[in-house]
């Protein structure tokens, strides 16, 4: 199974390379290192969000409220920034993380304590968080001229040749890699996704672990809220509307199984990059928006098909054992 998962990520790398090569035949500049760095930077927010979603999906849950959480947190920090321009940026970033964490923990508590399916909980909170964004802002926008220069320019600053936004994404990827592969929490997240019953017997609190996963996804959604509004220099109720689907698509393309327990940090990052490349490369070579969508959609179905194959084979192994028992 592990070799299969590896195989899936290798397949993604090949697909991404092929996509870049294809675009490069029409537009050689695309494959230049500088341009690829730009694509990476453009995809940073999606990668961060996909990693948070991955933590939730691995536990057999889903977080549909990430984009709404992003919009609310983005609006909150933008309003805070415009109201108190002297507030230091680190404090704003910490409050973005904290607001996102609170919204994520509401999802987590509902899933844990009331045992409501996560798809229902987050479908509800998606609407509530959007509505709350409207109530908070009264429907008004926060524009560039209301934001402090530090707020806007931080992620654009260059550090060792890369924008700070890219470095933040790299930092988040590293943190997720550490948590998912090297901590008891990450191990528990995988274990409850693969076999919740056996995990209970092993002394893992399944509900609490799911709660923590939702807190993680909330926190990265909050962080992305700040990154998003400072990148596009606007905070409105409509920010990232419908973006939850892109986040989930990135995870699915990256080989993260909707059934839980299967998926990796590399997969989520590659899935997001694949989507990012399609969105940035195809317009360059004059592919119509319809074909962009069709290609993204086909990639999703292809990925699910490959995953389903893998899982079905695994099922057959289990059956053989069940027969012998």
């Amino acid at each position, binding site marked *: *199974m*592990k070799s299969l998962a590896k195989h899936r990520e290798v397949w993604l790398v090949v697909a991404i390379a092929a996509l870049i090569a294809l675009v490069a035949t029409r537009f050689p500049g695309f494959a230049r290192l500088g341009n690829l760095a730009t694509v990476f930077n453009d995809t940073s927010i999606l990668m961060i969000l996909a990693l948070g979603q991955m933590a939730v999906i691995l536990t057999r849950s889903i977080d549909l409220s990430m984009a709404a959480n992003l919009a609310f947190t983005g609006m909150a920090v933008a309003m805070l920034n415009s109201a108190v321009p002297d507030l230091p940026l680190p404090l704003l970033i910490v409050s973005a993380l904290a607001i996102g964490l609170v919204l994520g923990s509401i999802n987590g508590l509902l899933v844990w304590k009331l045992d409501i399916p996560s798809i229902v909980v987050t479908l509800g909170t998606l609407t509530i968080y959007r509505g709350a964004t409207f109530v908070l802002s009264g429907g008004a926008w926060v524009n560039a001229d209301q934001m402090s220069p530090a707020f806007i320019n931080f992620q654009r600053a260059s550090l060792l040749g890369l924008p700070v936004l890219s470095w933040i994404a790299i930092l988040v990827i590293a943190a997720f890699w*550490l948590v998912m*592969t*090297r*901590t*008891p929490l990450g*191990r*528990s997240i*995988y*274990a409850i996704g*693969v*076999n919740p*019953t*056996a*995990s*209970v*017997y*092993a*002394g*893992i*609190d399944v509900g609490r672990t799911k709660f923590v996963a939702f807190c993680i996804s909330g926190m990265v959604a909050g962080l992305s809220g700040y990154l998003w509004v400072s990148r596009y220099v606007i905070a409105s109720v409509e920010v990232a509307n419908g973006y939850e689907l892109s986040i989930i698509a990135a995870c699915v393309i990256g080989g993260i199984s909707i059934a839980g*327990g*299967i998926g990796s940090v590399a997969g989520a990052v590659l899935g997001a990059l694949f989507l990012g490349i399609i969105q940035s490369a195809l317009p360059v070579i004059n592919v119509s928006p319809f074909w962009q969508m069709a290609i993204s959609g086909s990639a999703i179905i292809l990925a699910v098909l490959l995953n389903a194959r893998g899982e079905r084979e*695994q099922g057959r*192994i*289990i059956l*053989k*054992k*069940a*027969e*012998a*028992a």
Partner: protein
Amino acid sequence: MHTTAPKAELKAPPPANAAPLLALSGVSKSFPGVRALHNVSLSLYPGQVTALIGENGAGKSTLVKILTGIYQPDSGEISVGGEPVHLTSAHKAFEHGITAIHQETVLFDDLSVAENIFLGHAPRTRFGTIDWKTMRANAREVLDTMHAGHIDADARLRDLGIANKHLVAVARAMSIDARIVIMDEPTAALSAKEIEELFLLIEFLKSEGKAILFISHKFDEIFRIADRYTVFRDGEMVGEGLLADATQSAIVKMMVGRAVDHIFPEREPNIGAPVLAVSDLSHPTEFDGISFELHKGEILGFYGLVGAGRSELMQAIFGITRTSRGAISLDGKALHPKSAADAIEAGIVYVPEERGRQGVVTGMPIFKNASLPSLQRTSKSGVLRLKEEFDLARRYTGRLDLRASSLSQDVGTLSGGNQQKVVIAKWLATRPKVIILDEPTKGIDIGSKAAVHGFMAELVAEGLSVIMVSSELPEILGMSDRVVVMREGHIAAIYDNKNLDAETLVQTAAGIAA
């Protein structure tokens, strides 16, 4: 269909020389490492109930799966009504008129009674749509015939009790004109009154000339309803005949008398002070007033029929099932485990019965499975140390003689016996005081069984205490220092394992006066 009163006196006496409706001969079936059935025969006669009797693992479920077309036998012949048949699929078995009514009947909760009865063969209108009117009328007719007119054909199945669901399952069998009805532990979840109704129904099926295979652990039911018996032991048919000529003790002897298939380890029991004390532990529905003590260095066997409450009791001691009353103490200190983590922390671990569902995490490598309950110990400042995990896995799986190419191998690719070794290793790694093993050798090959037994002997020699829940008599008699027999959620007796014989245990577990 005409109405027949389901009265016992209407039934014709079983004709001694009638031809069997269904006959199996020389049927064998093996799974990797396990011989489930060896050269068995079975005959079912029209209008008669044949009881299939045997311990767990005797091969009863494998036989049912062969008869219903789910498994294919490796060799042997099956004939229905004198004609040889090949039951290559569930559908084929169905076409030959074989139907099974399971403990958990396979019906559709959200469909109506009529739909359940006629699913797959519903009457059609001219236009090919379902003829609801005829279907309802036919359903009512079938139910009336069975004296089950109290069931509303339009009711949703979800709203019926288990006994009525059984009636619907039988009605379905009647509607497809099934000739052979297999009842696999049909009374397990029924109340006494519902069991009476089921027996009336069985009398009715007999009067309709159906051949019935009745599988039950309960001797009173078998002697009450069945005409014939067939006894299986370790996958072989060891006796059959008319129940009128048999006694309970003769059948128990057939069930348990066996050649020793493997030698249990010789032990010099060195039993110390009590470690675990359970007093008056009770659960609202599963067990009541359970008191016993487990001593240092002791193997305490728990024997009983399936559904006697043994696993539920162990899960309560392990903190997974809540209790309503009673106390647990470990080394003299009161213990109130609220979760498995609490119990593990205190030093009690539980190796669950269902290895696939509750034990291993397939898809994860062996070393990750082995370290799962010990993650706090194998990590430092919150970061897992892979070397520690490997060392821990190597140390404990090595003691159990695990056969695997490497510790990074997916646990799902191991054989059942080796999976069980990983599960036991995982629990030992938590360094427990008390280890509870629930059916530790169920469905694993002889070699792995011997390894697990040898290892249990080592553990108690080192001063651990073991509770072993087992339905396998040789294992209970071969390994235990004392044996607790449970029946219907109570402790029926506690025996010292000195000159204890299998018959005593079976009779105590089944509630038969010796």
